[in-house]
């Protein structure tokens, strides 16, 4: 049983990580959901029977460990709340940009281009190729979609 759960957790982590590498927000959110499920499954497997701090009749060896279940419940509630917030943010982002894609950071891009565009080049031909190189660089980093 444990080995099945371990495989399930591994699969969830693997698929989640793949989705996180995408540039579409909706996929990233689904990936996050899967990874946190993986964490919860792992949490469920961590309990050992027989050490339950329960008061009652019967052999403690028959009881499952309630602590990981309580912890998994708590994390499920927390992830639920944060995922809802994330979805709201993604919706807001879509409202603003009409696009589901993660944008490049504007200040980073200006530094990338500034380093290349702002250089003192006396030779006009070199200057032009450098400007084109810089533009191509910006386009290529901005255009890395879907993978």
């Amino acid at each position: 049983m444990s080995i099945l759960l371990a495989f399930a957790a591994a699969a969830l982590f693997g698929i989640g990580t793949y989705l996180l590498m995408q540039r579409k927000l909706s996929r990233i959110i689904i990936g996050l959901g899967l990874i946190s499920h993986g964490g919860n499954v792992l949490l469920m497997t961590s309990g050992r029977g027989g050490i339950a701090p329960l008061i009652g009749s019967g052999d403690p060896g028959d009881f499952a460990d309630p602590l990981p279940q309580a912890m998994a419940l708590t994390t499920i509630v927390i992830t639920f709340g944060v995922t809802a917030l994330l979805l709201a943010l993604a919706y807001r982002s879509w409202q603003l940009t009409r696009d589901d894609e993660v944008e490049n950071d504007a200040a980073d891009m200006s530094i990338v281009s500034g380093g290349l565009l702002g250089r003192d080049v006396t030779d006009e031909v070199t200057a032009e190729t450098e400007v084109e190189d810089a533009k191509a660089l910006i386009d290529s980093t901005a255009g890395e979609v879907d993978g």
Partner: protein
Amino acid sequence: MTNLVALPVLVPLIAAGLSVMLGRWRTAQRIIGVGALTISVGVSIALLVGADSDGPLVVQVGGRPAPIGITLVVDRLAGIMLTVAAIMLLAVLVYAIGQPGAERNHVGFTSLYLIMAAGVSASFIVGDLFTLFVAFEMMLTASYALLTLGGGRAQVRAGMTYVVISLIASTLFITALALLYAATGTVNMADLAVKIGELPPGVRMAFAVLLLVVFGVKAGLFPLFFWLPDSYPTAPSPVTAVFAGLLTKVGVYALIRTQTLLFPPDSRPATLMLVLAGLTMVIGILGAIAQDDVKRILSFNIVSHIGYMVMGLALFSVAGIAAAIFYVVHHIVAKTTLFLTGGLIEHVGGSSRLSRLGNMVKSAPVVAALFLIPALTLAGVPPLSGFIPKLALVEAGFDERRYVIVGVSLLVSLLTLLSLMKIWIGAFWGPATEEPEHEPHEVGRAGGPLLMIAPTVALIAISLAIAFAAGPLYALAERTATDLLDPAVYERAVLG
């Protein structure tokens, strides 16, 4: 004394609830917010004094004994962090009330801010890893909302990065917790410290590295820092100030706590941490020098300075950890002040981009002075408060024969000065090359709105006081470090 232990969490939480109910009466909301945080400051100081004189103060919530119930512990380290955090939170709230922007435009600001305050305090006082996770989430969830207040395009983009990376770190934390629980059968930190000794050294080391990654993301350690300079600058400046000052330090606190308490000397990744600390310093400061925006330069500076704290911790000697603790305290104060001044620069100068600012030493001399003092403090110019922990770090590094990291830290210190002088020359001395984005605000006799200037001045005074009281404060840091390197103190207090 132990009755007070839960108050730094309870008071802000109750106040947050009240301020939601009083959303219509802005004045009442403000009184509640400032009042709650003032109480928090008082309680935290009392707790620090109590923990310093009587040893760790422990509360078993619900009367359940330690490994089963939730334990709250205030030892010297927690006391120091609580006190500094409470003072910072109070100062920044007053600043936020004075600044036209976030606090005035959003009914929920005070409540969110108080929930975050409760989360920060909770992170410092909890005695088990799972409750630490819950405290982190409380703090982070409030911070997600604070970061994206207003919902502008840049904020949503940056907030997204921040939320996603924090969620990944949280999931990793849960994973680490699950594995730790499977291996030892407990999540109580004192109990773990005892039981982790039964594991093979390799497994212990793996846990140490896993927790290093989890808290490294929160602290902004290389190579996990990239989200920080992107997300912090877009928030309203009081929010950025408190994030920059406090939230990364909560990560550093968790690193110090877990690495010293849980892991015996043979399973601490000391060399790895030193390498990461050196890289964090260098990459952070190079990033800062490349930027053109006041807030972004300061954000990269945070990353660089996290390296110093981790360096002190990674030496794992009393001198090193004492220096790291002193550094955390100094850095919280200095960094928050710098961001508050950054907000003033934006308010008075009409932009936070250096190319659009200029000649402010004439147009806003008060702001110039308010920037220069914390900037020199941060760079570690003697006799200001940044000099003391840096000197202590260098000495501790020499004691442990870690010469490379000492060299790197000194070089980065110089570069820090360079990055801050870039702001000074760009905003205060040189002319502006572009037009500001919006009309600069009128500068009054005080040099800006009184409620913005006053907290900034108060924080500078605290920073100067740290330098003047360096002797007793450093002695306190050394006592704290001695406690941390002897986990038996903590274990006895919690497990009885």
